[in-house]
């Protein structure tokens, strides 16, 4: 039996290989090494939720009708009988109520969309804080960034399809934002909606974008993203034996085939469980789109909240000055352009370009395959936390009515608080994070030089109390001393020996300023000399101190025991 299977497998392999030379690929891929760490799973979650989106999406296309043709509902859901609605909304009700399992797939699709974007963003944070975007991976960072933008597009187009009150109002907001764009705004709105809002063209157009255009782009870029991961080989966390020139890990086949492949099923299972027990987007409660009603607590999906929050945050009047200008008879709406166009543009632009910004400051041209511990790059970590704080403030403002309601706060006070917080909290977060990082670096120095606190207290004969420190093992020491001690850039002088001003000086000077911002304030890793000194110093060296104090402690212990025994013996003999 076994040999039969084997020979069949060999036959198939031979057949395919003679036609494709796949043997070379298999040789290359099968035992490719991947380092192991839980944080490397975040990108996998994104990939897997995308696959779940494809699977569940194919199911949904079998029932969804992307049409704005009007019908009077006469389906199974009695509450809505006779209501005028588009076929898009009717088919959404049909999928939910009359296709057994249809509601489940709809909810799986929606939950995995939320998870998709959450996983992408968390994955980006991991890549950012560990410096995995450094050379040679800058381009792959850009690919991943584009995937996030496409993910937002996929999410928003999907959210709009059921043509319910919530999604219709979402589209109306988009329409309002587009109209605010100078010169081309109203024409762009006509281009999108095929005339006036809401029109009859939008749902079919958005459907094509949602099921064809955006997913095809995502699929292509996912392919490129993974190709580059294979080409570069995965990064690894620092530690003994791990260098920029090697990769330490376990082979793709069988370990990661089982782990990563199995993880797909785990993600699918968890999403299915969420879809089974948590209702999401119950459009039958909202009703079909109508431009007139809207309910309090209106919220987009979470990944759009930051734009909505920015729109809520920006006042129409600032210290008595209008934020909408009328210039030469034309209208310029800063109150919409700033929060919905300019700020997101700058925010995303900064994220996309960050690898190059840091590379200018660092001036390091080498390939980096060992990840940074976030504490060892305090300014980057600070920037990351400040960016997250900025984003979270916008998200919270995007649900300010719900936050205000839950915590019994005044909605207006909350908005005013966030209006100040958006300027004040990110710099504070930057500063605090940087201080924490520097503190952790000092703690690392402390550990390397003086060892772990053992919890054992020893009293010297002169009455002095001392805690015994145990020295770090070589792995612990290596982790704490082996990192790049980056320093601010040194640049060539402005004038050469002939007194001629050198071209490019100004640019260099700017880079130097950036570099000083990054690396001026730093904690140096323990040097070999310091380490040796600590080691050999008769009182304070970790091992010497430890051993001496340990020995003293043992001695004292032995002496005590002896004396106790003596006392006990005496008592026994007295009896």
């Amino acid at each position, binding site marked *: 039996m076994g040999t039969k299977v084997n020979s069949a497998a060999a036959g198939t392999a031979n057949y395919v290989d003679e036609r494709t030379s796949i043997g070379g690929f298999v040789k290359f891929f099968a035992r490719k090494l991947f380092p192991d760490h839980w944080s490397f799973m975040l990108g996998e979650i994104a990939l897997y939720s995308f696959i779940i989106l494809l699977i569940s999406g194919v199911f949904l296309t079998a029932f969804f009708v992307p049409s704005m043709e009007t019908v009077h509902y006469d389906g199974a859901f009695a509450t809505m009988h006779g209501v005028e609605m588009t076929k898009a909304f009717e088919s959404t009700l049909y999928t939910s109520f009359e296709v057994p399992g249809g509601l489940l797939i709809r909810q799986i699709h929606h939950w995995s969309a939320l998870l998709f974007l959450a996983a992408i963003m968390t994955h980006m944070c991991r890549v950012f804080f560990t410096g995995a975007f450094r050379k040679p991976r800058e381009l792959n960072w850009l690919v991943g960034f584009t995937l996030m933008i496409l993910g937002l597009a996929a999410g928003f187009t999907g959210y709009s399809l059921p043509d319910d009150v919530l999604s219709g109002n979402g589209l109306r907001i988009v329409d309002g934002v587009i109209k605010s764009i100078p010169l081309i705004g109203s024409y762009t709105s006509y281009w999108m909606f095929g005339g006036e809002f809401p029109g009859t063209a939008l749902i079919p157009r958005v459907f094509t974008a949602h099921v064809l255009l955006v997913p095809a782009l995502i699929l292509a870029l996912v392919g490129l993203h993974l190709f580059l991961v294979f080409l570069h080989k995965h990064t690894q966390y620092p530690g003994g034996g791990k260098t920029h020139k090697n990769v330490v890990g376990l082979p793709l086949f069988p370990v990661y085939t089982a782990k990563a492949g199995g993880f797909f*099923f785990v993600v699918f299972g968890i999403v299915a469980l969420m879809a089974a027990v948590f209702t999401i987007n119950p459009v039958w409660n909202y009703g079909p789109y109508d431009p007139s009603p809207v309910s309090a607590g209106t919220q987009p999906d979470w990944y759009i909240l930051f734009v909505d929050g920015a729109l809520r945050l920006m006042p129409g009047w600032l210290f008595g000055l209008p934020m909408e200008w009328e210039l030469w008879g034309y209208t310029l709406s800063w109150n919409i352009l700033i929060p919905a166009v300019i700020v997101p543009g700058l925010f995303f632009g900064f994220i996309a370009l960050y690898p190059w910004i840091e590379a200018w400051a660092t001036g390091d041209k080498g390939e980096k395959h060992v990840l940074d511990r976030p504490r060892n790059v305090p300014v980057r970590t600070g920037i990351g936390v400040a960016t997250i704080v900025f984003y979270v403030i916008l998200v919270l403002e995007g649900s300010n009515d719900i936050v205000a309601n839950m915590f019994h706060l005044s909605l207006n006070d909350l908005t005013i608080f966030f209006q100040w917080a958006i300027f004040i909290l990110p710099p504070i977060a930057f500063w605090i994070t940087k201080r924490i990082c520097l503190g952790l670096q000092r703690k690392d120095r402390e550990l390397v030089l003086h060892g772990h606190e053992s919890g054992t207290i020893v009293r010297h004969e002169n009455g002095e109390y001392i805690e015994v420190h145990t020295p770090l093992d070589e792995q612990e020491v290596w982790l704490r001393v082996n990192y790049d001690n980056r320093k601010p850039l040194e640049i060539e002088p402005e004038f050469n020996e002939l007194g001629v001003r050198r071209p490019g000086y100004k640019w260099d000077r700017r880079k130097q300023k950036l570099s000083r911002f990054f690396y001026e304030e730093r904690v140096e890793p323990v040097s070999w000399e310091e380490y040796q000194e600590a080691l050999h110093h008769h009182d304070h060296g970790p091992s010497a101190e430890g051993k001496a104090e340990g020995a003293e402690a043992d001695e004292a212990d032995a002496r005590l025991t002896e004396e106790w025994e003596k006392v006990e013996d005496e008592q026994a003999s007295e009896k």
Partner: protein
Amino acid sequence: MSTPENTPDDAPQEGFVDPGLAHHRPRRADVDPKADKRAERQVAALFGLSAVGTVIALWAYFTKDTGDGGDVATIQSVNMWIGIGVFLAMSGIGFGAIHWAKTLMRDHEMVEERHEMRSSDENRAAAIQNLKDGAEDSGLAGGEGEGAKRRSVLKGSLITAMAIAPLAILVPQIGNMGGDWNVSKFRHTMWGPGVRLARDPDGALIKAADVTVGSAYHVIPEGLNDLDHHHKMDAKAKAVVLLVRLDPSDLKIVPGREDWSFDGIVAYSKICTHVGCPVALYEQQTHHLLCPCHQSTFDVSDGAKVVFGPAKRPLPQLPIAIDDEGYIVAKNDFDEPVGPSYWERLKGDSSGAEAEEESH
């Protein structure tokens, strides 16, 4: 230009020695055959659980009665049972495979060398040479060989043709997507002289006598409900109005609009001047209108001026009067475009006429 470089030494910590990979700690299944067997059984059990899950999902699909499908609770129970089946079917496989990998497959880390991304100098030189040869063959670049020509006319004409060719597709495509491109439609709504105010959504007409002080009506123009669905939606998206009656002593009349209201009854566009959400929440005590989307707040007693939030302009006011039969009617259309601002908002209809010409 010299670029400052700051490549730190590869071994910044001179003196310290890389201790190499950490010592491998054997797992229980590596040393204890009993633990090994137990792990194997656990993995098999998880795979078995997956099969059970599949059975549950299929059982729920075939036997759980969906009735006529109108009952949300029944639908949700079918949803839950199939979902739990899928959960077990999928995560059983997943956790089984991961448990297998973690307990029974190799966990000795292996080491592989990396290679620099940069191509070797020979490859780079060969690549450049190939491109040079190709460019020379095509005539795009002048070569040194005899007979090599620089066909700059070809280059120029090809680039021009390539640059404009997409227009042949894009202009008709984009041109058609905007409908009639008549953006001046933003300026007009269904309201006009004598159009009666009706309740949203049933279309019942409103008599001034029915509107008590403090009450608020969601209003559509009479005849809106007779339109077919799409014209109705387009018209409704601009025409919805909120009608409130205040104590006339509370009402500050905007100069020039003295005859736009009737005995404390005022009507304002319900489309927010920020980004166009319906301003649907009326607070009777403060006379404030609140947009639930971005919380722009307008004071109805004072010309619907912005008192809080991101909107800048007041809501447009609909001038109203009472007709012979006592119904509330519009005296005219709004005198400005309703809804969010746009670039040519303050321009008259002339731009619209031009656009109409272009479209023909």
